[in-house]
């Protein structure tokens, strides 16, 4: 499933697979710092890098134990650079798996072993691995999954389109949607810590729209590469790890529900309720580390655009043009966290809104459905589905402006 162009980084140092002594010692010399220091206090420097490089730099600082890769455009950029990190000693274990079911399963194995575990995929790869990914939350496995969204439906293409998130957000995985390279760096780093909190103990997916962010360069403020996050502490999590260092000996953590009966229904229901309660408990850390589930611009505006991922960037430009060229203040709500979903934040922010527009990079409109469900009975605003683009094309600012100002003409 790896077609299309791979853009490679021409490194000034030796390529992947060649370990230089200086690099090894550089990795070994990384100092462990608290998450708070890493996220808020450490001095940062500005770099102009691709989203793939931003992910790599986050992983370099994330004290990752096991990373397992499988190539698929546009993800390959990232995981092959993680391979280089392994060669340099920043990641302890790494290999290229057989395909996505194998990779998602293997990473579930390493997470159960108590290792901080990472993988990444894109579009069809996520769909292929979905059976496994959907089972991670029930297994209460801290894992970080990076998703570089791409087309999944026919006619197939490698371009960004985030329809794949439609089911993922209903699996119990925590799901963040990064807008740009900076988000991708920050969310990835923070995902490890949120994932491993005792009251959370869940996988966290950090999605980003492929190519637009992964292959394009943007400014990223980064702390020094001399520091890294504290290691995973598998003995302070919601369930025991499978390392045989936990009493009692009989420990079937992934209890199969043997047959259909009332006990099995009860087990399943209470287990899943607990998974979703844990998703909700992650809010505290999203507020603490990520500045909240949403970012709100111009909260008092009559018309509000609600978006996530790359659609936020397009909406920012539309909001800027509306204000600078047309003299109209338009609101913008960026949804950082798709799960947990910012229901109460949206109800509060939209209580006086008259029109709400939900631009999306997919044909199904999963964000629109969530927004409409959250606001039903809590807002008098007209909620407009769209504009939407399919197949991975960018959403032109003109289309968003057209939805904001239906009486004006923006597109020819």
């Amino acid at each position: 499933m790896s077609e299309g162009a791979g853009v490679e980084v021409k490194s000034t140092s030796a390529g992947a697979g060649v370990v230089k002594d200086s690099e090894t010692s550089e990795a070994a010399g990384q100092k462990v710092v608290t998450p708070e220091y890493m996220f808020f206090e450490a001095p940062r420097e500005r770099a102009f890098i691709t989203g793939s490089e931003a992910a790599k730099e986050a992983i370099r600082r994330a004290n990752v134990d096991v990373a397992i890769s499988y190539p698929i455009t546009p993800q390959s950029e990232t995981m092959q650079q993680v391979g280089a990190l392994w060669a340099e000693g920043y990641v302890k274990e790494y290999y290229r798996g057989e395909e996505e079911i194998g990779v998602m399963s293997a990473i579930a194995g390493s997470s159960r072993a108590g290792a901080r575990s990472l993988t990444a995929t894109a579009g069809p790869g996520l769909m292929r691995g979905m059976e496994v990914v959907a089972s991670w939350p029930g297994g209460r496995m801290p894992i970080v999954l990076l998703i570089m969204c791409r087309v999944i439906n026919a006619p197939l293409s490698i371009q960004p389109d985030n329809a794949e998130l439609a089911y993922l957000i209903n699996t119990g995985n925590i799901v963040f949607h990064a807008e740009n390279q900076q988000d991708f760096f920050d969310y990835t780093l923070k995902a490890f810590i949120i994932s491993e909190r005792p009251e959370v103990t869940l996988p966290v997916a950090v999605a980003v729209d492929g190519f637009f962010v992964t292959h394009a360069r943007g400014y990223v403020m980064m702390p020094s590469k001399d520091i890294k996050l504290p290691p995973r502490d598998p003995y302070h999590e919601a369930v025991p790890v499978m390392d045989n260092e936990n009493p009692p000996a009989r420990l079937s953590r992934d209890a199969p529900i043997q047959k259909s009966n009332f006990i099995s229904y009860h087990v399943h229901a209470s287990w899943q309720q607990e998974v979703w309660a844990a998703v909700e408990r992650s809010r505290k850390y999203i507020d603490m580390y990520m500045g909240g589930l949403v970012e709100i611009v111009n909260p008092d505006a009559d018309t509000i655009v609600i978006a996530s991922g790359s659609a936020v960037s397009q909406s920012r430009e539309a909001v800027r043009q509306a204000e600078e060229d047309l003299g109209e203040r338009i609101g913008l709500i960026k949804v950082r966290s798709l799960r947990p979903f910012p229901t109460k934040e949206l109800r509060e922010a939209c209580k006086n809104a008259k029109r709400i527009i939900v631009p999306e990079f997919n044909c199904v409109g999963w964000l629109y459905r969530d927004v409409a469900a959250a606001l039903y009975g809590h807002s008098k605003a007209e909620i407009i589905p769209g504009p939407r683009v399919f197949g991975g094309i960018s959403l032109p600012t003109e289309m968003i402006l057209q939805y904001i100002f239906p009486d004006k003409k923006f597109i020819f």
Partner: protein
Amino acid sequence: MSMDNLKISPALEKYMTKEYRDLVERGPYGKQKKVSEMGTFKEIIEEHPMCAGCAMTLFIRLTMIGLPNPEHTILVGTAGCGRLALSQTSIPFIYGNYGDTNAVASGLKRGLEMRFPEQPKDVVVMAGDGGLADIGFSTVLHSWFRKEKFTTIMLDNEVYGNTGGQESGMTQRGAILKMAPKGKKYEKMDMLGLAKTANVPYIVRMTVTNPTRVASVVRKAVLIAREIGPTFIQAYTSCNIEYAIPTPKVIDDAKSLEAERYGFQEFISDEAKAFLESIEPKKAKATKSTEA
């Protein structure tokens, strides 16, 4: 470390069940039990919801006795009859998704090796013929080619027993089963040959007819996997329900299949043999290489 974890805190002793106290006091942890000692120690598996007379259950029970270090062993399984028993064992058991066993085991083993460089942690996959040769085929073969250090045991009953008797890749040609109403059209898959192609250093085909041998083969397979590379045991564990074998005839059936087409085969690489001799000089000498 694990042994310490097993032990009951004195303050809690009176609250612990008899079952658990037996496990700690008379279980197989920290000592290698023999098949001949069955009945004198608390076994890793005692209860199970399998069909009466099931050969697979006997095989699993013997397997548990063969494990060299049950206190440091993690089992990995998938959908199928076997997991019904495996989830009742007194060692950790991972029940993942369909056909994922050898991928889960790969990640698990590497994670454990990374976390416990000084303490070997044994990973053993036990799944059915459908789980390993059909849906899990890719992860099995790739784990072998990657030289992942764990044991794969196929509980080969030549049918999808748990779903009610459908043809599998390991079914004999001609067998009439569900989804093969006109009889299976293709040969039984040669997983042993594939294991050889992948240079698996220890490959065994066997049945349940010789209990001591089952435990001894499992022990060797786990030890070799620890040091040398992947090991594979393909065991005939008949389905007396789908193949309509009368319960008292289950062992007779195994014996006749052994004579006809499922004879004991053991392939061991020179490296693996040398390793076994280095740790157990006498036992290894007795090992007869009967490569087909």
